[in-house]
């Protein structure tokens, strides 16, 4: 689709309005968010790495400058800010050179915002390769050599997802994963300790920071989902009863 059709014209502005209204009203009241086990485990994983005196791996996946990778970067920033207080080292491998300067800047800012600029090691944010399996091989090598104690896998992953997860499992790392790539979720579930499924990934930044703007956005997303469910139920009912209601209603939706 190169330009919006009628359906997009109606649904996208409606959903966007729901999200924006909730963002604006969120600043006035406290919104509830249910517990997401995988995200609660992040602090536990950081604590484990600190106790063991071993570094953490924060892999943001293979995406470029896109929404899932920026979301993964937001989660990674939170992890680094939390770990900076305990002087725990974080290694951030990068697969796409386009995102490399953005990641470098975000990681540096995370340490600076916690008042620990000296902890930032530029060699810990490293571009490995933009080839899928070369990146996987290099990251697996880092996991084995550094014996990471905690592995955070947030972002876009493809077939190499299991390589990261299984090598982390083999070195005994506690692993938390979250990805919008639905086909890789089963592999993470088999090999990781905690997995964030579906749009819990996009809820992560709201959950971790409890920022009113982000919480409001999440509630707005839920309202948008409600709108979609209503449309689906309405459409399914119409399609089911069209023969019964007669030809005129059937041709209306052709």
């Amino acid at each position: 689709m190169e330009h919006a059709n009628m359906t997009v014209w109606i649904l996208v502005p409606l959903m966007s309005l729901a999200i924006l209204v909730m963002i604006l009203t969120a600043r006035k009241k406290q919104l509830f968010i249910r517990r997401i086990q995988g995200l609660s485990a992040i602090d536990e994983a950081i604590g484990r790495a600190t106790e063991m005196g071993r570094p953490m791996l924060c892999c943001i996946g293979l995406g470029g400058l896109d929404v899932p990778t920026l979301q993964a970067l937001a989660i990674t920033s939170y992890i680094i800010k939390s770990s900076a207080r305990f002087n725990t080292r974080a290694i951030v491998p990068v697969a796409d050179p386009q995102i490399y300067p953005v990641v470098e800047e975000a990681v540096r800012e995370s340490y600076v915002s916690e008042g620990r600029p000296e902890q930032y090691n530029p060699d810990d944010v490293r571009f490995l390769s933009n080839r899928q399996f070369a990146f996987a091989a290099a990251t697996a090598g880092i996991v084995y050599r550094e014996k990471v104690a905690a592995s955070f896998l947030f972002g876009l992953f493809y077939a190499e997802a299991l390589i990261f997860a299984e090598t982390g499992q083999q070195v005994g790392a506690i692993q938390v994963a979250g990805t919008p790539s639905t086909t890789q979720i089963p592999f993470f579930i088999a090999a990781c300790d905690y997995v964030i499924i579906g749009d819990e990934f996009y809820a992560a930044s709201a959950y971790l920071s409890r920022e009113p703007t982000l919480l409001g956005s999440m509630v707005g997303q839920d309202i948008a989902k409600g709108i979609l469910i209503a449309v689906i139920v309405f459409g399914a009912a119409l399609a089911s009863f069209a023969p019964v209601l007669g030809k005129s209603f059937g041709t209306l939706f052709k």
Partner: protein
Amino acid sequence: MPVKAPVGPNIGMILLFAVASVVVLGLLMLVPLRFRRPIIRAITFLGGLYATVEFFFPTHPMPTADDPKAVGNFLTFTVQPFGNFTNAILGWTVGLGVINLCQVHGKRLMKGGAGSFNSLAFFLSLVIMTCIGILQKAHPNAINKNLYEILFIGGLSNLDATMFSIVAFYIVSAAYRAFRIRSVEATLLLTTAIIVMLGQIAFGQMLTSWIPKESFFHFLHIDLIRSWILTIPNAAATRAIAFGLGIGGLAVALRIWLGLERGSYFDS
């Protein structure tokens, strides 16, 4: 449709844009720190506004000689050049990756010690592959072509395939460890996985192929059960997750566009 003759590079335009880029970058470097985030937010907003207007603005017929049904709006003609412009900018970032790799491995090589031979291997590979790649294009004789084949097809391609093959081994160890009857959900997962796996191999299909196709119990054919699992509950679940992800992506994109995003480098 007449095929256009290829257009050569316009040196004048290239120089003009190169100078303009240097001037713009220089001006941006001079901007005080406190104005940088507002400028970034303004550029982000304008970029998002352009994409939104181009997508949503009502279209009208814009027939061409080749496509009489083409439609567009007042911004449609800019999409292709804008895309090329973006690609040209992003192309420069490839060098950043190589520079970073050289910095990290260069330091390690200078320091010496355990593992520094890996950094030496990196530099040798980089130089050899680059030289062979250039030679193969510039002087495509038999020696250069063969060297390229050995390194690219024989080396890189096969290493790629090897790493993908490791996934098979890891799946076995992960599945053996994870598929245990620890709870109702785990048992359901295990049963479904076994049915789907059996349904897609010849030996598994043989287990139920004896049931006649015309009989009432034909639905018990394991390949049919597998198809049902994949096309009905699995498709429904992935579609639902995809809807959630799509809306989540819309929300994040909206927040970034309107400067409402918080966290990491978005914070003021």
